[in-house]
């Protein structure tokens, strides 16, 4: 079918085109406790066609896109392309060129077949081996395993294909005491099943469950130092990446510039972020991005100073940049502190939020605390309720990170991240 679509695109006379074909074989298993709720399988193909047209003698360029069903006939495909060719003329953007064919496109990163059966079985078996007790156990879990084959072609001659695994497991953990039961929610994305990592993190989650049962109301701390030790810290490092997207900068939603520090006074650890093409067992190990741009290891932010930008072809082209791409794997390098140093003094350790958010444009952070530990310098008390808030514009000036790092799917980040003077709206005294 793809050969037919390419032929039709070439015959159509459109200025340029992109074609993405993703085939996915998926296996899914849903459990209530350890009993099978339902099993599912899927075998699907999604073909996305995007065409570009020059408008008003090349002064503008427009685009239009659509998904073409894999069951479409040649006539249906021809009609759809003709419709897109017309619609693209209605849109007036500044012209730019699509990603060109380069030497990097001749490499093939992932082409080995993915064994969904084995990965799915690994997940099922690891969930049967967790250290459950009478008071801490697994409520339910959902396993998703996909073998994906993605092919990208464009009118510049790019034709690349990769095969990769993409998995996810969602787990709900219960803990109970004296008739009171709580739950903790986890979802883990990965390439294949990281059995050891899963067991380790779920054992820690079960411990958190026990602590939440004895948690006291979060005190009204006013402002406090907050240490993030869980995957919510990803949102903090995403903030740095997002503000270095070309579309954010071009549209003045981020005022960061290459070579200019991100804040006037950077007194804490200075953040360094590198975009990686490969990270072990990441679900996002790709040789090229969604527009066919080759992905390469790139330092985006070096010690608090932007070193490069990332993002889609359109805005990168407008800014005169070459070699940019949409990030997949992100490495935020460790700071200068040991865990022991960061844990000195009074601080709130936030380990569970309802939904921790960082707004990349305004810098605002929010999160309702489901479980934290208030370390008052002498003793440690599990706390729950209330919220934290503040602005990354302020926090970047003196944030601190541990030297040790931890990986969550496609992010490797410092194991501990400390933000100073965070507003803590408590529910207790």
């Amino acid at each position: 079918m793809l050969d037919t679509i390419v032929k039709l695109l070439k015959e159509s006379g459109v200025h340029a085109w992109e074609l993405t074909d993703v085939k996915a074989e998926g296996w899914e298993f849903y459990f209530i406790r350890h009993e099978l709720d339902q099993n599912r399988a899927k075998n699907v193909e999604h073909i996305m066609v995007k065409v570009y047209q020059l408008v008003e003698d090349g002064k503008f360029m427009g685009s239009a896109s659509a998904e073409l069903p894999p069951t479409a006939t040649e006539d249906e495909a021809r009609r759809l392309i003709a419709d897109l060719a017309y619609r693209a003329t209605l849109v007036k953007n500044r012209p730019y060129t699509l990603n060109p064919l380069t030497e990097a496109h001749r490499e093939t990163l992932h082409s080995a077949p993915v064994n969904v059966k084995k990965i799915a079985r690994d997940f099922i078996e690891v969930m049967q081996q967790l250290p459950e007790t009478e008071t801490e156990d697994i409520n339910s879990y959902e396993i998703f395993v996909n073998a994906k084959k993605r092919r990208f072609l464009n009118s510049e001659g790019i034709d690349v294909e990769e095969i990769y695994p993409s998995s996810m497991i969602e787990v709900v953990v219960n803990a109970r005491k004296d008739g009171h039961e709580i739950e903790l929610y986890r979802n883990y994305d990965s390439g294949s099943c990281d059995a050891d990592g899963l067991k380790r993190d779920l054992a820690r989650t079960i411990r958190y469950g026990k602590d939440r049962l004895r948690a006291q109301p979060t005190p009204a701390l006013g402002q406090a130092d907050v240490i993030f030790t869980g995957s919510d810290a990803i949102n903090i490092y995403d903030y740095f990446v997002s503000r270095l997207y070309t579309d954010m900068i071009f549209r003045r939603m981020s005022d960061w510039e290459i070579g200019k520090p991100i804040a006037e006074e950077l007194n804490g650890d200075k953040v360094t972020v590198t975009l990686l093409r490969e990270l072990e067992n990441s679900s996002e190990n790709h040789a090229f991005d969604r527009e066919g741009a080759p992905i390469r290891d790139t330092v985006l932010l070096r010690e608090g100073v932007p070193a490069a930008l990332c993002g889609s072809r359109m805005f990168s082209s407008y800014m005169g940049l070459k070699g940019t791409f949409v990030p997949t794997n992100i490495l935020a390098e460790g700071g200068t502190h040991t865990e022991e140093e960061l844990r000195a003094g009074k601080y709130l350790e936030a380990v569970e939020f309802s939904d921790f958010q960082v707004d990349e444009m305004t810098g605002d952070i929010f999160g309702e605390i489901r479980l934290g530990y208030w370390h008052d310098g002498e003793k440690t008390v599990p706390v729950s309720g209330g919220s934290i808030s503040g602005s990354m514009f302020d926090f970047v000036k003196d944030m601190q990170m541990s030297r040790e790092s931890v990986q969550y799917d496609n992010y490797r980040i410092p194991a501990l991240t400390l933000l100073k003077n965070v507003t803590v709206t408590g529910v207790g005294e």
Partner: protein
Amino acid sequence: MKAPFSAYLSGIKPGLRELIGLLRRDYDYVSVLATDSRGLAVRISQHARSVASETMTTERGIVVRVYKNGQYSEYALNEFDPARVEETAEQILKALREQQEILAATGTKIYDTAMLRDEPQTLFVEKETEQLPETTDVKSLVEKLGALSDAGMGMSEYMIESIANAQSTHICKMFLTENRDLCQSYVYSEGAAVAVVMRDGRNQIGYQSVSGLCGPELFEQLQDKMSKAVDTAVELLDAGRIEPGEYDIIASPEVTGLIAHEAFGHGVEMDMFVKNRALGKEYVDKRVGSDLVTMHEGALCAENVTSYAFDDEGTLAGDVIEIDRGILKTGICDALAALRLGVEPTGNGKRENFEHKVYTRMTNTVFDSGTDTLEDMIASIKHGYLLEGMESGMEDPKHWGIQCIIKMGREIVDGKLTGKVVAPIIMTGYVPDLLGNISMLSPDREIFGSGGCGKGHKEWVKVTDGGPYLKTKARLG
């Protein structure tokens, strides 16, 4: 005009009936949901403009559900060829057989569930619309949205971006079993005007939306929305920070909807009852709010983006009174959860798309109105806030915690708005306290249908929520 049912689905129906017949040799129950939903999405900003045929709910594919020995299994595909039905049946049987081998090898037990009833039923619904996304005048729409975006830029010296979004989707779904034949076709649309401002290196966003059970004709309503979006964004530039604490609050209809959705929307999704993941299970027929609180849920209780005729399991749409004058009466339920709980399904079994599993999901979740005026509510508050604009929310059905991120609060002191604005606001609290403290409700009611709802952190579907202005107490930070 009526939104015409998909010719594609009508064309494959005989083949799907044949497939059901073939699979019935191996399974006791077989159903097929087939979808063919087409759309149009136009996004116009000052720097990037696009036209696409995909929205959040466009799809074409089929999902087969089978049952045997207490076990439900599904297979989703999007290359169904009516001329090769036997091949497709064998493909499904092979995949599910292989999964069964893994389940046997790992000693997995089955959550034994009864078989779904398959009583004869036919339904063919084509809902009214003025226009269709497939055939609407895209050129005219692009021009109108472009003019709106341009106009927005002239509304404030601080504007740096002005975005006009319009999406319309023509949903066509067909549900078949041996005895059932349900077909529906309807169009829903949603649009937004977004204003981005910058002053002294700080940005703010204002956002206004429209939605409805109608075609692209809805987008005429966007014309009035940009100026309000710009006003909101500019006001936010001068917003201060709130002093954290508990306050009397007035929730605007948008915030009321967010409370309805997060407080007792997710909390009474009864597939969570099956897993013992929702406290609501223990509170049926008990008080969860003040006498003023009555809440409805169902595809039939409003005409908006998720007002379908039947859900993704072939259960007809409903209208459930979840909370009646403060007493929790019932939850909402998909078909399998209903079998497991021994109750009737409520027409709330929804999939993100044909590739995804059914879960119990919300449709329209709304508080009933009251009799108090907004002016009286403001006058009754010594020190509090009128909360406007929703950003996001997160449920906690197990503990009835609630987190709502709200765009802004207007300060009220001694019964009057002071003109001071605070932003952003995180509202947290214990749901029975929040609902128990509701003391005033306005007579008017608005429903909002832009955006989507996830279950946990995935499974995105369209929902709406809303209600009147309401007064209660909440913890703000």
